């Protein structure tokens, strides 16, 4: 049983994807098409493409299953809770009859139990988002679509809530979009990358990190350069997988002139790595004494069939911040 999408015929989205049970992240920069993708799956907006779930077509040619007939619940980025009804009333309204309600439990987990009897305007942005999630969960649909549904929640809490979703998934399928790469990698079973409307089929976080499909995604994942390994293969350089010095037992060694120095007025260190033809610079969230050397070692290297040193990408090679 899976949820599959072919975007042929869609004016903006391209590519195909198939999602299985679990926590599936959709990442991409803003404007990449995350919302369009989730709305398409929800049956809102464009009626194009081909969507199948559990052997049934949600969208196929002119056949279009309306949102309220699809076994899913969708939470948009800006929750449009009904302003003139208290949260609890809205939850009761969408609650699936005949199911033991788990809304109380989730309201507890997402820490909004105390505000359930209030009107939406009395809640903060983050609380409204969590209320919208609890409301969506009350529908008891097998697929939950969350469009940056925790974007207004502060980082620490959001990670806590994601952990809750990971530990006891409220729905067999959860598709959530985010622009927090590290969270997507940490909490998801699969990650779907979307760039300028192009959908790259879902991969496990490990797979995505080790074999990014192309240079652009490698860049998004934090890779900042590459060097040739042998004929047609390149080692990608990720600042967090680099140790200064020559350590052949730990990974691939690359001879380069390396300078590491503390960044003034901060707790960061600045790295400048001069390779054969290229200079890479980045910052890392660890303070260090000044260090100079003539090699770096790439731990657990990602080896890919494309370089990340093209002129185009080089122009990006300025210090990155964490």
């Amino acid at each position, binding site marked *: 049983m899976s949820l599959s999408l072919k975007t042929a015929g869609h004016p903006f989205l391209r590519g195909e994807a198939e999602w299985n049970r679990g926590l599936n992240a959709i990442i991409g920069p803003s404007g990449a098409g995350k919302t369009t993708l989730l709305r398409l799956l929800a*049956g809102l907006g464009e009626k194009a493409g081909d969507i199948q779930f559990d052997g049934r077509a949600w969208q196929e040619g002119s056949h279009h299953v*309306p949102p309220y007939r699809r076994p*899913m619940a969708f939470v948009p980025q800006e929750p449009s809770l*009904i302003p003139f009804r208290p949260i609890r009333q809205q939850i009761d309204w*969408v609650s*699936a009859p005949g199911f033991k309600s788990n809304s109380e439990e989730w309201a507890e987990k997402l820490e909004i139990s105390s505000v359930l009897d209030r009107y939406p305007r009395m809640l903060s942005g983050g609380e409204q988002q969590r209320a919208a999630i609890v*409301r969506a969960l009350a529908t008891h649909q097998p697929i939950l679509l969350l469009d940056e549904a925790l974007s207004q929640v502060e980082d620490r809490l959001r990670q806590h809530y994601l952990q809750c979703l990971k530990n006891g998934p409220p729905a067999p399928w959860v598709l959530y979009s985010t622009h927090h790469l590290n969270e997507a990698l940490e909490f998801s079973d699969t990650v779907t990358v979307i760039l300028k409307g192009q959908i790259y089929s879902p991969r496990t976080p490990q797979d995505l990190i080790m074999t990014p499909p192309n240079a652009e995604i490698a860049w998004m994942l934090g890779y900042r350069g590459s060097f040739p390994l042998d004929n047609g293969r390149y080692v990608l350089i990720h600042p967090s997988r680099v140790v200064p010095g020559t350590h052949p037992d730990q990974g691939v060694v690359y001879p380069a002139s390396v300078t590491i120095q503390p960044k003034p007025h901060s707790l960061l260190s600045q790295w400048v790595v001069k390779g054969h033809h290229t200079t890479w610079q980045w910052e890392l969230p660890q303070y260090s004494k000044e260090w100079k050397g003539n090699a770096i070692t790439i731990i657990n290297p990602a080896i890919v069939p494309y370089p990340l040193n093209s002129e185009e990408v080089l122009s990006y090679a300025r210090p990155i911040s964490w």
Partner: protein
Amino acid sequence: MLYKTSQTVGIVVLILTALPLVVLIEQGSQSLTSSIAAPGVLRALWTTLSSGVLALGLCFALGLPTAYWLRNQHSQGRIKRLFAVLLVTALLMPPLVLGLVLAFIMAPTTFTGSWLNTVNSASNTFPALVLAQVYEALPYFVLTAWSAFAMIPTQWEEEAWALHKTPWQTFRFVLWPASRPGLFTATWMAWARIVGAFGSPVVVAYHPTALPVQIWITIEESGLPQALALALWLVLIGLPIPAWLTWKKGGIL
């Protein structure tokens, strides 16, 4: 300076606006009860109320789905524009012109008229009166209800659909309560138009005589004082509820 000037003008306008009502109440109330005893008046009152309720029901039943449908048209859709132009034209059409057209349609010489006349004489009937009233009031109802619906973000509706709620359930839980004040306004605007409809009923439905036409007859037969008393009756039927609703809402639309 600007405020002072506008204040002066505003107060003058307010007095001018209130004047007819004050005069009407002052003059009309003198023979309010006696006027109703005049021949044909009670019948006209009853005709206005019964045809009015029916016409209002028709406006509601026809106008509400239309307004809902228009709301859900694409924002730049041609149908939406076309309908807006049509409705505004219908709204601004002089009632007398409307009456003439209706009379022509119902005349035995036209196709529809001859067809209608096989059942019964088309004009000067109760249905003709109701039809004339509906024609005068429907554009008001649809335009006001449409704007009432249009003020509700489509997002609310879409999100409810995406939570497994059908459009009908969503209408009842979200759209109806949110648009109710606007729909009330639409309803009572239509009611005021229906009750006061004169231009087209005077052409197509002189009989059964409704109150506005009866007022016209009274002027001709008994003079202005009697007619003013009837006019007060008309205002008392048509306007208190819209006035009260406006008061309750605390201002205009």
